[in-house]
């Protein structure tokens, strides 16, 4: 399941090879290899505990892999700490949002926009995220903790965008949101992609996800068990049965 052969291919942003991780001896991720090409939406799907979040945390530097490599634009960034990875151009919007609850919406954005790579274009970044999420502009002076779940998700994504990433990783952005918000979030993901943003999407909402993904990887017990285009997977009976609850 090695993707190393693709690494020299032009336009490959992220490539992982043989990534493994364990929590106190229990294997969470085993030899995962995925590639994300420029301009794509790539999806990681699978059940709870399949190792999706662990994988993207290793890519973003929030966890150090036990074995394996992470390449970004051909450069080895394995084991680089999170605050340096984001400076390279990979932004992870973490699971369950983790907004700074006691800071205002504006302060949340300010912190992320202060990176060396993004600081000079902070004003444009504000314009961009407020145009994407007008609601955040209305609430800019409010504490992030007072926002609804959907608004906090918007803030978390906006915070990621303030770092002006080349690749945006979204970990379960639709988790716990009302169906109305879920639709909005997916519409927004697609819009960002059309503007040129490369996206790595971790999701449990398989139907919505496969519909917009250029490529998808299915994780099971820490391993990649399938990879294909989103469209092909959506048509696949086995995937339908396992993840969409359809017979």
């Amino acid at each position, binding site marked *: 399941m090695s993707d190393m052969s693709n690494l020299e291919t032009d336009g490959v942003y992220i490539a992982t090879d043989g990534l493994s991780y364990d929590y106190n001896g229990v294997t969470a991720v085993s030899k995962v290899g995925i590639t994300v090409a420029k301009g794509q939406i790539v999806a990681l799907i699978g059940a709870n505990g399949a190792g999706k979040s662990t994988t993207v945390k290793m890519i*973003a*530097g*929030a966890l150090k892999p036990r074995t394996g490599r992470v390449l970004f634009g051909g450069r080895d960034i394995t084991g680089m*700490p*999170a*605050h340096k990875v*984001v*400076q390279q151009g990979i*932004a*992870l919007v*973490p699971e369950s949002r*983790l*907004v*700074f*609850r*006691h*800071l205002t919406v504006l*302060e*949340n954005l*300010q*912190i*992320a926009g*202060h*990176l060396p790579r993004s600081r000079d274009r902070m004003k444009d970044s504000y314009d961009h995220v407020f145009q994407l999420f007008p609601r955040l502009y209305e609430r800019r002076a409010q504490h992030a*903790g007072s926002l609804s779940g959907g608004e906090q998700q918007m803030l978390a994504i906006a*915070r*990621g965008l303030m*770092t002006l990433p080349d690749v945006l990783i979204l970990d379960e952005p639709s988790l716990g949101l009302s169906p109305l918000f879920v639709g909005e979030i997916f519409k927004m993901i697609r819009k960002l992609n059309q503007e040129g943003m490369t996206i790595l999407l971790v999701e449990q909402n398989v139907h919505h996800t496969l519909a917009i993904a250029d490529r998808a990887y299915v994780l099971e017990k820490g391993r990649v068990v399938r990879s294909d285009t989103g469209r092909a997977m959506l048509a696949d009976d086995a995937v339908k049965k396992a993840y969409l609850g359809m017979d």
Partner: protein
Amino acid sequence: MLFLQTLVNGLALGGLYALAAVGFSLVFGVLGIVNLTHGIFLVAGSYGALLLWEHLGIDPILSIPPVAIVLFGVGYVYQRTIIHWAVSRASLVASLVVTFGVAMIIRNLLQLWFGPDIRTITPSYSFSSVTFFDLRIDLVRLIALGMSLVVLLLLTALLRHTHFGRSIRATAQQPLAASLCGLDVERLYAKTFGLGAALAGASGAIIGIVQPFSPATEAGWTLNAFIVVVLGGIGSPAGALLGGVLLGLINTLTAQYIAPSMTNAAMFLVLVAMLLFRPHGLLGNAMGESR
């Protein structure tokens, strides 16, 4: 009139307590560490001011910046080494034991260097006082109160309006998200610890002109800081000010109307009552997420 005079004394004392506690409060709120070395930093500030006064004739108020800068460095290195090792290899609780041990070692070293005698710093204005109507207040107490308020206001502005301050608050609430936003969390922890030590040193320099000190007084100041945080709430200058003023008032009122020997008993009574009824302090945890 006696009552008013007692109130004024209590307020002046409270300002000192607030400044003496705010560094402890910041470190507690951001790193989750109960720093039992805090009183040592404070007493070290007093001795630093004493040395500068005796050898170079520098006024204790002017010695605040150099003392604070040196202690910032000491606190920074202390966190990056001993505290970091203890927390990363064991747990936050381990830092309690480690800081207690370091406090004992340094207290004894201070006793070796400076002797166990009680010292004071006495600049020319030490024995003047100011009178408003019938209320009298020592000039040094007035200066100390003023300086405490100035430092607390500066700290508030720093936390609220600078990138460094925002980063400290963000890291206190969500270390993981902070690092994903590009903040070097480990370095921010060290800087916050350094800031806490610098504030302790600054208050030590001020306390040197108001109250006698010796190496052994450090434990009392750590305890005071703990009580101030329990009363006022964790992590904010406002909480420290509220807690400090309350503690100052409790102290002077008890000494005046009950008995001077009962001040510690009154402090602990209030401490226990607060822990029972409002364990997060009057203003809660300004840094957010409870640990």
